[in-house]
């Protein structure tokens, strides 16, 4: 049952989610976006496209991922029953592969021989380089110079997979600048290049397309929880940077108003410190990277740098559909600090023997706050979006 009688039908044909989204790009890119949208619409209507994606998701990425009942965590917190949707067990160690397989197969259909991508923590870069290797495409990954230092292991993984990693030295030298640089590459090489955006961000049709490819998380979780509990969960929790894992979990439940959805942003050193990535909870509406959405910006409309201990959340924008969900009251957005996330990182490792990504640890941290006051009849599903191996170095210097 939805909150309203109508079915949820965003985006509209021009990529708007209410006031958000759209295609705020230079004219050079408009024909490319229109071409991409047509190719995607055509593919989406073709059964063989879905079959090919399903084949790779199952045989190559290891789907479906388990929905694991976290008994020890449930008992430790003493409230709601907690399930973990184990995206950390997917190939490459995070949910990012769901999207890169989808866009990679689309790239193949469109006959482009070169793939580019931006990456922050390196997870999307690794997932893109993986698919480029699988599909035998030339691959260039843009990564902020700061991030190449913080995430050396992932830089090595990408190179091993045959990708060229180009460090970006402009602006804040992080994810947003990597995205600017990838867009510039795409504008220049649009005729033979496919740009795989890693989150539900960017100009239309990316937010919709990435949402569709990530929705496999929520579809599987729905089927699995019905099998395990015979009912839908009470609450879904996921971390939000650009917001792709949260979108993937929430979207199949969007018309289920009885299921509460909570997106957890990174409060960094605290919302008052100015050093955070809590775009929705502490930002304002603006236009960045091709869509209208909540942003971290100053009073002159200049985009501010974001901060989070989790490089994958360190982004001053957020997917436009999340902005719509915020204003429409479909999802509750909250934030947790670096410190709380680090504590949750240790907690899950010790209690469940699962080392989560620092991004994911934000979702765990919020569940530690809400689960104890819920009843044991209630069910929470957390999107365990990625594994924490990549963060061992960062965490060991902070814990």
């Amino acid at each position, binding site marked *: 049952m939805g909150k309203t009688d109508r079915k949820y039908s965003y985006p509209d044909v021009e990529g708007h989610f209410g006031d958000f989204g759209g*295609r705020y790009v230079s004219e*050079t890119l408009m*024909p490319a976006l229109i071409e991409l949208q047509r190719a995607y619409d055509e593919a989406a209507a073709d059964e063989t496209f879905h079959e090919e994606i399903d084949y790779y998701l199952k045989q190559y990425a290891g789907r479906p991922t388990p929905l694991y009942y976290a008994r020890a965590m449930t008992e430790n917190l003493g409230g709601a029953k907690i399930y973990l949707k184990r995206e950390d067990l997917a190939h490459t160690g995070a949910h990012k592969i769901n999207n890169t397989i989808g866009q990679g197969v689309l790239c193949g259909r469109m006959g482009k021989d070169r793939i580019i991508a931006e990456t922050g923590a390196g997870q999307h870069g690794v997932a893109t380089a993986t698919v480029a290797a699988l599909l035998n495409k030339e691959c260039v990954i843009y990564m902020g110079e700061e991030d190449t230092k913080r995430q050396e292991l992932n830089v090595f993984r990408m190179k091993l997979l045959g990708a060229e990693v180009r460090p970006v030295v*402009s*602006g804040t030298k992080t994810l947003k600048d990597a995205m600017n640089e990838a867009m510039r590459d795409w504008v*220049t090489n649009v005729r033979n290049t496919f740009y795989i955006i890693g989150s539900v961000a960017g100009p239309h049709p990316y937010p919709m397309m990435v949402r569709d490819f990530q929705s496999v998380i929520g579809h599987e979780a729905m089927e699995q929880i019905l099998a395990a509990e015979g009912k839908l969960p009470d609450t879904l929790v996921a971390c939000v940077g650009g917001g792709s894992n949260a979108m993937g979990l929430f979207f199949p439940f969007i018309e289920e108003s009885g299921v509460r959805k909570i997106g957890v942003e990174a409060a960094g050193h605290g919302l008052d410190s100015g050093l955070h990535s809590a775009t929705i909870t502490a930002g304002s509406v603006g*236009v960045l*990277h*091709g869509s209208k959405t909540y942003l971290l910006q100053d009073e002159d409309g200049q985009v501010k740098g974001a901060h989070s201990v989790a490089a994958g959340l360190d982004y001053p924008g957020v997917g436009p559909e999340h902005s719509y969900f915020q204003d429409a009251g479909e999802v509750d957005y909250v934030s947790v600090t670096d410190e709380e996330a680090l504590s949750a990182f240790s907690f899950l490792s010790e209690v469940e023997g699962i080392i989560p990504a620092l991004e994911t640890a934000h979702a765990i941290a919020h569940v530690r706050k809400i689960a104890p006051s819920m009843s044991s009849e209630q069910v929470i599903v957390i999107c365990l979006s990625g594994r924490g191996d990549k963060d061992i170095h960062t965490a060991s210097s902070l814990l």
Partner: protein
Amino acid sequence: MGRIKEKFRELREKNKAALICYVTAGDPDIDLTEQIIGHMEASGVDMVEIGIPFSDPMADGPVIQAASERALANSTSVSDVLSLVRRIRSRSDIPVILFGYYNPFFSYGAERFARDAREAGADGVLVVDLPPEEAGELSTHVEREGLDRIFLLAPTSTEERIEMVSQNASGFIYVVSVTGVTGARPDMDYDLEDLVERIKRRSELPVGVGFGVSSARQAAAIASFSDAVIVGSALVRIIEGGGEERQEVLGRISSFTEELSAACYR
């Protein structure tokens, strides 16, 4: 009649393509920007395009991106740019086009921006990341204030998009000469003349060509088939290379724009 339209009419009589020169406001400070524009005008530049700096200039190459960073290092805002336009307008009738990315305009407020830009004496607005599909709100206010709405077309633009831009634009149509970001290039390989002709079949507006013009030789070639030659990065590079030597920068800007202006006569 608007200053842009008037200028194109005047130049047609002289058989000259308009020379439109770009400068990022506040690079490296707003006083030098004002002096640069004065020198440009004295050297035969017909219109100026003033860039409003933005933190994430996605469509620009490294030269203009660095100019934006220098301008933002001293916090150049939309208000600062409008004050600059007011000072230019108090002593000159040169057409002024404001160029930028949408977020600073959006943050300032579309209605307030259009009103203040008109009051300051600006003549046209070009927002790089605002194609006709998204331009609705800003365009409405810009049109109401009598300012020209300048849109881009690119080598990748289809006939459908040329038609859409023709329907929405005023002042002139800005053709991006290459698929790529801004930046001076030694050669431009695309068959621009054909693109300009395709646009002219659908629109009566003047057509200007920019992105990559870096020499008088190129300017002359473009002037032979288009109504305006737009030069940006090559000028910004002079400013970048000048460092603290302001008089030297002004001198080099003057001599380069004189050369470009001479090349625009057919």
